[in-house]
């Protein structure tokens, strides 16, 4: 098991080091802010004109410090932070008191994962196939496709999302205007509910796929252009290997490799949600949750989501590294 000893273990150590540093940053960064969240909270109460007697104030401050994990010295806070991480307890949400942060994330995560994993995979596959074929054959249609992509590419995503929403949600009301499923609907495994969820997800998914395909199409096309100049492609062409075989087994197969890296990285970002998409379509995912947490200064929730995101990105890169030899046999772990 030379692989385990020389590659896997050092790689895992590396992984845990990244997690440690990343999560420490999650702990440190909020504490570097000039604002004290507790005082902010108290000030907020007081602006409403509430009179709080001093002994009560002391108690409130203590309770709040406990909630925020700000009790004790920095070291005590830090060890407390790790203890809470390992038990999966991020404390209660401050804005939606007393629902625990972990519960909030757990209820929003499936929406985000469902939406983003599908759109990420779909737009990747479409971009790799269409970009590969268009880049290799370079016909009239490929030029038209290229022009269309050139038009879509510079449109900022939020404008694209709003245009789609107005067009397909309002002017031609094909799809609902927002939400993850119909209001008042309980989740259950029946055809009607699933249909409803898909209907709500279509528009956000569509915008994500359009934008995702557009930029990945362009990068795929560029990679294809350099692959088609490789000796093995030129030789296969010169010796009369069928174009179809060259397109799929030589061009797309080889140009796909950098795209796989891109896909792996994108998977890591799924867990932080699609902020703008979820805002525009009021889709109940992690992005929307994060947005609300930021707006309402829900520190516990922000930290919970950040922790998730750090772990997800690091883990997906770990998986990418471990799985890469499956797609590129030249990669060997010494």
């Amino acid at each position, binding site marked *: 098991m030379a692989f385990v000893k020389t590659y896997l273990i050092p790689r895992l150590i590396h992984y845990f080091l990244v997690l440690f540093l990343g999560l420490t940053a999650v702990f440190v960064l909020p504490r570097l802010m000039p604002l004290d969240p507790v005082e902010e909270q108290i000030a907020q109460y007081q602006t409403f004109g509430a009179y709080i007697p001093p002994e009560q104030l002391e108690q409130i401050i203590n309770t709040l410090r406990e909630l925020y994990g700000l009790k004790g010295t920095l070291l005590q806070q830090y060890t407390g932070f790790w203890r809470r991480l390992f038990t999966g307890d991020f404390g209660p949400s401050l804005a939606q008191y007393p629902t625990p942060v972990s519960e909030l994330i757990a209820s929003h995560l499936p929406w985000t994962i469902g939406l983003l994993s599908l759109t990420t995979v779909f737009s990747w596959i479409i971009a790799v196939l269409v970009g590969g074929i268009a880049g290799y054959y370079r016909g009239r249609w490929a030029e038209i496709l290229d022009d269309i992509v050139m038009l879509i590419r510079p449109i900022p995503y939020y404008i694209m999302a709003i245009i789609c929403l107005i067009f397909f949600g309002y002017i031609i009301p094909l799809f609902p205007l927002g939400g993850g499923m119909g209001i008042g609907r309980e989740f259950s495994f029946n055809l009607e509910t699933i249909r409803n969820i898909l209907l709500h997800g279509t528009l956000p998914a569509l915008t994500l796929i359009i934008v995702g395909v557009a930029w990945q199409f362009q990068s795929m096309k560029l990679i294809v252009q350099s692959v088609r100049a490789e000796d093995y492609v*030129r030789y296969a062409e010169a010796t*009369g290997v069928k174009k179809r075989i060259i397109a799929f087994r030589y061009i797309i197969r080889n140009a796909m490799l950098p795209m796989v890296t891109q896909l792996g990285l994108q998977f890591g970002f799924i867990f932080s949600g699609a902020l703008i998409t979820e805002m525009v379509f009021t889709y109940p995912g992690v992005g929307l949750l994060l947005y609300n947490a930021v707006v309402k200064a829900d520190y516990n929730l922000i930290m919970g989501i950040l922790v998730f995101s750090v772990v997800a990105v690091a883990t997906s890169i770990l998986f990418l590294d471990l799985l890469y030899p499956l797609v590129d046999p030249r990669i060997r772990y010494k």
Partner: protein
Amino acid sequence: MKKNRMPVLKTEQLKAFYVLYTFGKQTVIKAVNNVDLEVLEDEVFGLAGESGCGKSTLIKALFADINPPLRLFGGRVLYRIKDQEINVTSLRAQEKQKLMWKFISYIPQGSMSILNPVRKIKRTFKDFLESHVGKQARKEALEIAKKHFGELGLSLKVLEYYPHQLSGGMRQRVTVALATLLRPKIILADEPTTALDVVAQRGVIQLLKSLQKRWNSTVVLVTHDMGVHAHIADRIGIMYAGKIVEVATKEQIFKNPLHPYTKFLINSLPRFKDKTIRETIPGNPPLLFNLPSGCPFHPRCPHATELCVRQDPKCIEVEESHKIACWWVDGKNREDS
């Protein structure tokens, strides 16, 4: 040497130039300029010449692999298939595709990188077979490849490897195997031994030679290594500045070179027990986009006359199986033609 062999590959007045545009300025590089060449069946034809004289371009043109910036400016490339001469340059892509690799095959320069790096050798063989043989043979692709490897004396294990797992010499042999899988009548080999050490070189050259003997096929071998030519070529063509300046049998070229350039070339070769300093050709090779008038060799030629500056000599037979393009032959100017 066997007599009365038919030319299997022929070019007539072949002109293939590179046309480049840099900042709107057009540059024409005359890499293959008016080449008349006849390659006979069942022979090894060696093509020699210094770097940048158009050897590789000629091979590309022979294989009808003419892609921009390379363009055909005139002339024809003829293959003789079943006693019929076919002009490949006018064939449609589909018809050409049928001939390539099956009738004529090509081992390109730097052929170490012609194998797809992420496909196993056997998969590459399968891809090539799939495009060229019938449905039945497709299923037997692996068997065909195995049989061929056996004939060539290569280890069958190699088929299971990826290109990067092979040594340079092995990879080169695999490319030879790939190029000869369907027993082509003509094999064009462009510097097949470059970047190999002499031992591996010998292996590759012997492999080519044995294939040629076994199947009575024709090999056109490009290399600037005169030692390799002496080793396996039957006839040798000497190229200079995009032209064939001398064509003769190996013995004639080495023992009795006639063209001044060939003379310089042969005299520059080291010999056993001869410790005298080798003479080099004065001057530099001409730039192919700015050729001198008349005979392109005249600025460097010690025998150049006013006629050489004015007019380009044709390649003419001066003795049996010996053609040269020079106004000065055997010490005197040729007044005829």
